[in-house]
Every structure is written in C-alpha cells, then in structure tokens.
C-alpha cells in the first residue's frame, strides 16, 4: 500500500551511486514474473508482475461479435479492452473507462493484430480483456506483453509473439524500462513493441524531447530489452506445457 502521502516528484532520478532510485542500472529491467492459464473461465489467460505492475489478461474467442454490425464478413476482428482498476493508482480512478483507456486499447489492438491470422475467422471476434490491478509505469507495454501471452495460451494461431517495453530519458540520460516515477518526472518516454516474425515495431510512441542521436540510441536499447522479455514469455509458455506434461506423466504412473 502507498507509503507516501503526496505524489511529489523527487528532485533527482539517479542516486549518488549512479544507480536509479530503485537501484537499477540504466539498462536494467525491473523484476518480471509471468504465468499463463490463470483464469479458468477464459479461453486463454496470463498474469504479469512487472515491477509493481500487476496485470491480468484474458482472451475469449473466436466468438460472436456484439454488436453485430462490427463483424466483418471476410475476416475476424480483434478487440482489446484495456482497463485500470479503481485502486491501481495513487488517486482513485473513476470506474467508467476513460479516454486514456480507450486510446491504449486501440494502440494495443493495432500492435497485436499483425501477428494474427484474422482472415481465417470471418464474422467472429477475438476479445482480449486486460485488467491492470496495480500500476507503476509502463502499463501499456506490460499489457501488450501479457496480452500476447494470453493469446498464445488460448491457442490462437500467431505468426509470432509480441513483446513490448518502454525506454526513455531521465535526468538527461537514456534508460530502459521506466518506472512510474521515472515516467512522470522524466524527460522522454518511448514505448515500443516488436512483432518477432518480421522483427519490426508494431507499437511506437514517443513523448518528450530527444535529439536524433538520442532517439536512435534509444531504439537500440529497446531492441536489447525486447529480447530479454521475449525469453521470459517463452519460458512462461513452456512452463505451462511442462506442468501439463508432468501431470500427464504423473497420471501414467
């Protein structure tokens, strides 16, 4: 629970020892934990802890589209609904979905769609529900990452996984994986996502202020971090199959 009372930004985002406030090196990721198959009712699901972020994703589909007029006769549609729990942030969020949540939903949709074979599912929808239960910076990237995992868990055919991370600039220095405080008090934020089948960016936003050189370097920092996140996703998927395998083998005893 929050230990500070006011949401005041610190003067500096680096400690005297040159490390970031949470003790990380410039290009170090926060601790990440992933798990698939966490919501029994869903066709696929995943849970992600990324720093203090706690995010669930569930996939339903292919299923009927409501309202019907959104359905497309020649292909399936992907719908992503990103939501934040009222208590996931410092000041209680109003329950109704806000403009920001709709915008992020759209961005994640665009970002995941390239890896799907929607043309195989005419008239239907895949619906991805993302619930941020606890938020601490980088939720759109974390949500993209966990949503890709939930799609994979649902057995939806995919060209590849999608991984996502935000890089940026704080106190004038380029860093990887901005925390909440770094996001708010920093100079620039560059969330991006990669579709591994073509190794291109399917999400790219930037806000802040960077020179051409800084932006170029930041893109390379992102690329390195994305590799690490991809490995964690693959491990999470494997560990489910491993545990299924163990169950099956255990059953044969």
């Amino acid at each position, binding site marked *: *629970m*929050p230990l500070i*009372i006011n949401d005041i930004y610190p003067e500096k985002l680096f400690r005297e020892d040159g490390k970031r406030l949470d003790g990380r090196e410039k290009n170090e990721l926060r601790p990440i934990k992933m798990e698939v198959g966490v*919501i*029994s*009712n*869903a066709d696929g*699901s995943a849970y992600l802890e990324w720093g*203090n972020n*706690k995010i*669930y*994703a*569930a996939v*339903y589909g292919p*299923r009927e589209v*409501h309202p019907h007029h959104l359905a497309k006769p020649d292909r399936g549609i992907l719908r992503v*609904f990103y*939501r934040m*729990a*009222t*208590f*996931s*942030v*410092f*000041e*209680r969020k109003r*329950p*109704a979905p806000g403009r920001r949540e709709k915008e992020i939903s759209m961005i994640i949709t665009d970002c995941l769609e390239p890896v799907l074979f929607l043309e195989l599912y005419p008239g239907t929808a895949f*619906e991805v*529900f*993302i*619930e941020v*239960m*606890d*938020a*601490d910076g980088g939720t759109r990237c974390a949500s993209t990452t966990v949503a890709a995992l939930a799609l994979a868990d649902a057995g939806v055919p995919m060209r590849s996984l999608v991984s996502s991370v935000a890089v940026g600039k704080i106190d004038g220095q380029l860093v990887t994986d901005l925390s909440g405080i770094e996001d708010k008090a920093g100079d620039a934020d560059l969330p991006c996502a990669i579709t591994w089948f073509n190794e291109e960016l399917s999400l790219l936003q930037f806000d802040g202020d960077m020179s051409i050189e800084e932006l170029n370097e930041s893109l390379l920092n992102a690329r390195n971090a994305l590799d690490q996140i991809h490995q964690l996703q693959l491990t999470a998927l494997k560990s489910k199959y491993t545990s299924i395998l163990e169950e099956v083998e255990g059953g044969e005893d």
Partner: protein
Amino acid sequence: MMNIKRVISTIEKNYIAENLKKGERIDGRGLWDYRKIDISHDIIKSAEGSAEVKLGETDIITGIKYEVGEPFPDLPDEGVCTIMAELLPLASPLFERGPPDEQSIELARVVDRGIRHADCIQTKKLCIKENEAVYIIFVDMFVMNYAGNLIDAGGISALTALISSRIPEGVMKDGNLEWTGNYLNGKDLVKELPLIMTFGKIGDIIFLDPNLPEELVCEGRISISVTKDKIVSIQKSGVATFSIEEIQGLIKRSMELGREIRNKLDLWQYKVDK
C-alpha cells in the same frame, strides 16, 4: 444481455436438479458445505488495503482507496464508506462490458447492507473534523473469475481488505489538512464482522454456496448476513418463493454457520501494523 439461464442445457439442468433432490451436489459437497476459501491480503501496492478471496474457483480482488471530503450535513461527524462491484468481462463469458448491470449492483448492495447494519465500519473514527472533513472510503470489488456465489466471496473480500487497510491520519489545522505521519488501520476502522451466507433453492431443496451450474439452474437465492448474535440483512432474489418455516430454518442455520466460519477464517489475522 445474454440470458445466462440458457447456458446450461435442459438435460444438464435436470441432472443437477435430480441429484440435488437426493441431497447430492455435482462437486460432491453436502448441502450445507462451503467450497474451499483462500484468502490473500495486502496484494495491491497502490491501494490502502486489499484482499483476494477465492471461493472454489470464484475469485474476487478488493481494493481500498480513500478521499477526504465534506461530511453529509445530517451526519457531520461521520465518514462515508461506499462499496462498488465490477463483474469484469475478463472473468466469465457471461459478463459483458458496459455500465454496472443488475448483478453487479446486487453484489455491491448486498455486501453494503450487511456492512451497514452490522456496526461494522466505525464511521465516527473516519471523521477528521466535524462538519468539515471526513474520510470517504471506497471499497471496490473486482470479480476476476466467476464460478458462482459472488456475494459470499465478495463479503469476505471486502471485510479482509478493510481489515488489512492502512490510512494516513490527517488533522485540520487552520482550515488546512495536515498529515500526522501516523496511520489508521483495520482495528480502528472495523468493529463487527458481518458474514453473508447465500443459499440456493431448486424445487424444495435448499443448499449453501451455489457453484456456477447450481446458480444457473436454481430458481432463487437468499442471502443472510449475520454478526455474532444478530441477523443484520436478508435479501431474496430470483423467482423462488420460500415458506415462512423455511425462512425461520435458514435464519437459525445462518447463525450457526456464521459462528463456525467466523472462527475458521479468523479475519483479524489480516490486520497490518499502523
């Protein structure tokens, strides 16, 4: 809105009902048994209190937030506690997006009424300065997986989140709010612990803690909230009717069950230090 009653086929319905009439439940429980209850507390860093309660496969996460506002004019020295529920579409194919529907309003209301009439929340402790500033406590329940009987799970989840909460202590100085650096915790906020017991009815059979298929086939439910020695709230829902004798029996049983579960769960263990 999807008609959730159609999700279960008639054959399945008959099967469940026939078995219930023999006192047999599809998951092997006795008529008056709860499913397994798992409780985690203080799981959300951004919340002032939180809990995750699993009742079988039903899963509810509740978080506490606060604001400081003006009291109601007729209760100038009492804080306010509001309870909300969201049935996330993530939690079930039966849940839809959109504004709160009847089922989520019912969940919030029944939990709220249990708490309100049980002398549970110490609203006077939530007063910072009479007529001027009180705490408004938000108890927000999010259903993460829906496998029947949200109400009983929600009630425990809300109570645990409140017990595990920690709220900065404020004082008014010259018209400005100042934080003392101390905290209120669950021991300050919560007194009585109302427990809600929900029973399903199908034909003449009544049973505790309906799971999802039972909830979908049953004709009605009744939720009874009790403290150690009082009944504090009753809500009947659905088209089932109950004879006066049945009601009297259920009230008696709820008091007994309440005592048993109260001991077993020992919710005060989830209190955190100030």
